[in-house]
């Protein structure tokens, strides 16, 4: 590897054609086929599950959260790289922009969650038992759940849910629109005007990152945490923020490594930047376990009856098996593998780690969502419905991928009006 990089003595030329290679169309076709197959499987499971499509809807929420993570997590990372600068930011920019432009599809994914899950009360118990006094009388819910629904009504009500969700989608849409628009304008600028563009992107992104973080805290509470109205955790939103960056980095690295088989990424994506991004992945792997274990340790130490049931729901009744899988795939495997400097420089191996990381996101989301429901809490059991989690999210992510590849084809794959461009074309060993 090192011998190889040494032999590249000379500065490479920027390829004349920066558009995505033709095989991206093939990817899209494959993604669509996988999507259709798994979607049909999910429908069949939904018909046979006999639970009035409830598991289907749960799995839909699962798939929606993952796609939302890729799309808006991509937006957050896109803004972050404008703030931090760095050569990895230049090479990762166009894939991230393509991820953000999938927002319309993600919004479509949201609608069933909002309409069926919330408005019709099929997912969120605080909506289903909004009339908590009657439900309590009929012994449909416990006293503490009735108390939580009553007490948290100020936030957990349909107006709050819809208002916040639509506001977040609107604001993300505005940010995505302008970041994408200015990015093209920047490349088309006849004068480089580097300082002007850098300042403009920094000004948009600086506030944007802060704003997005706060908004994600709120929607993570609405969309996932409020499935269990009894429980609350102040680190919950931050865990989603880190989890999104974790998944987006893995996906962006996979995309770049797959695109590097052909121009223009072949001669612009150096092993140096790949190594740097591998290190960033490692950082997010650590940050993720730090938050997840920190939250667990604090609640375990506190051992208070308001908080600890959330973990018991997710550990007892065979859920410990999923929690262990989550630990292994989310931290143990990526951590031990990414420790190696060589692995981060070898594309095939790093690609395996990226796939593990994306799979880990799905396991983690399953572990977060499914035990919220009374039939599954402290009781991981086989049912037809549980297989929805293995089919519907795959279908939704595949359709999302197809859309992502379409967006990837829309623009040149390398942003050109950036001083880092000359640096990523230099040979690997120039900078010590």
């Amino acid at each position: 590897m090192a011998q190889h990089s040494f032999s590249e003595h000379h500065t490479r030329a920027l390829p004349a054609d920066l558009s995505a290679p033709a095989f991206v169309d093939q990817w899209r076709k494959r993604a669509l086929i996988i999507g259709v197959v798994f979607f049909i499987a999910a429908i069949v499971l939904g018909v046979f599950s006999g639970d009035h499509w409830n598991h289907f809807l749960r799995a839909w929420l699962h798939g929606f959260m993952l796609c939302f993570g890729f799309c808006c997590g991509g937006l957050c990372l896109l803004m972050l790289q404008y703030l931090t600068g760095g050569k990895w930011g230049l090479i990762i920019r166009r894939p991230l922009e393509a991820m953000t432009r999938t927002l319309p599809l993600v919004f479509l994914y949201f609608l069933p969650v909002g309409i069926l899950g919330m408005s019709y009360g099929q997912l969120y118990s605080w909506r289903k038992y909004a009339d908590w006094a009657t439900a309590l009388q009929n012994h449909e819910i416990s006293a503490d759940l009735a108390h939580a629904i009553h007490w948290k009504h100020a936030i957990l009500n349909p107006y709050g849910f819809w208002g916040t969700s639509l506001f977040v989608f609107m604001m993300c849409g505005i940010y995505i629109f302008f970041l994408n628009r200015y990015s093209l304008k920047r490349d088309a600028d006849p004068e480089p005007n580097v300082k002007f563009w850098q300042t403009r992107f920094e000004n948009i992104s600086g506030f944007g990152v802060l704003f997005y973080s706060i908004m994600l805290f709120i929607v993570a509470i609405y969309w996932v945490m409020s499935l269990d109205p009894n429980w609350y955790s102040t680190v919950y939103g931050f865990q989603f923020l880190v989890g999104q960056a974790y998944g987006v980095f893995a996906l962006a690295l996979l995309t770049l490594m797959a695109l590097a088989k052909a121009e223009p990424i072949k001669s612009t994506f150096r092993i140096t930047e790949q190594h740097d991004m591998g290190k960033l992945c490692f950082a997010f792997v650590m940050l993720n376990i730090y938050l997840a274990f920190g939250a667990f340790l604090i609640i375990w130490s506190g051992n208070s009856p308001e908080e600890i049931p959330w973990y018991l729901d997710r550990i007892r009744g065979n859920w410990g098996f999923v929690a262990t899988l989550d630990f292994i795939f989310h931290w143990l495997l990526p951590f031990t593998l990414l420790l190696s400097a060589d692995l981060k420089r070898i594309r095939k191996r790093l690609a395996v780690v990226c796939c593990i990381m994306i799979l880990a996101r799905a396991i983690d989301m399953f572990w977060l969502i499914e035990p919220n429901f009374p039939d599954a809490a402290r009781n991981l059991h086989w049912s037809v419905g549980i297989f929805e989690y293995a089919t519907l999210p795959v279908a939704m992510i595949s359709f999302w991928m197809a859309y992502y590849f379409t967006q990837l084809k829309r623009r040149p794959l390398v942003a050109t009006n950036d001083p880092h461009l000359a640096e990523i074309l230099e040979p690997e060993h120039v900078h010590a």
Partner: protein
Amino acid sequence: MALREGTYGLLAEFDTPTQLVHAAQSAYDSGYRRMDCYTPYAVHGAAEAVGFHKNTVPLVTLIGGLLGAAAMFGMETWISVWAFPLNVAGRPYYSWPAFVVPAYEWTILYAGLSAAFGMLALCGLPQLYHPLFNAPNFRNGATQDKFFLCLESTDPKFDLNDTRGFLDGFTPVSVVEVEY
């Protein structure tokens, strides 16, 4: 210990890292093995050019980290379970979640110390004497702005005249014979 006598090696001085790496690579390709590059800062490709592929500092660091984790986790277990068992709010004596944070801290500490001292030890430091400091141009330039390649006399391929001729082919600033 008897002092060694004779020639330690031939030291070629270059102005740029590129020349150095090129010369080192060529020397390696033509069969020289006992040689080293000396530069004021880390030069990418220099280590690879002299055939240095794998350094063992990561392994030392890993072993240090694992030792640290095992030591602290073991100590906490020993204290909490056998040496001084305390009932903390009715939790079991062996409460592993509480042990993780100190064990993690010791992993970092041991790994960091192993990396630093392991690196020094593997570099053969501290070293009080090195023949190359007999060369005046090395003393002045190696930490400033010069790049050196030394082909050592212990190499079977080393021959004072041939090797000097070989090094001259790369148009170095100078080629100096270094005594022990």
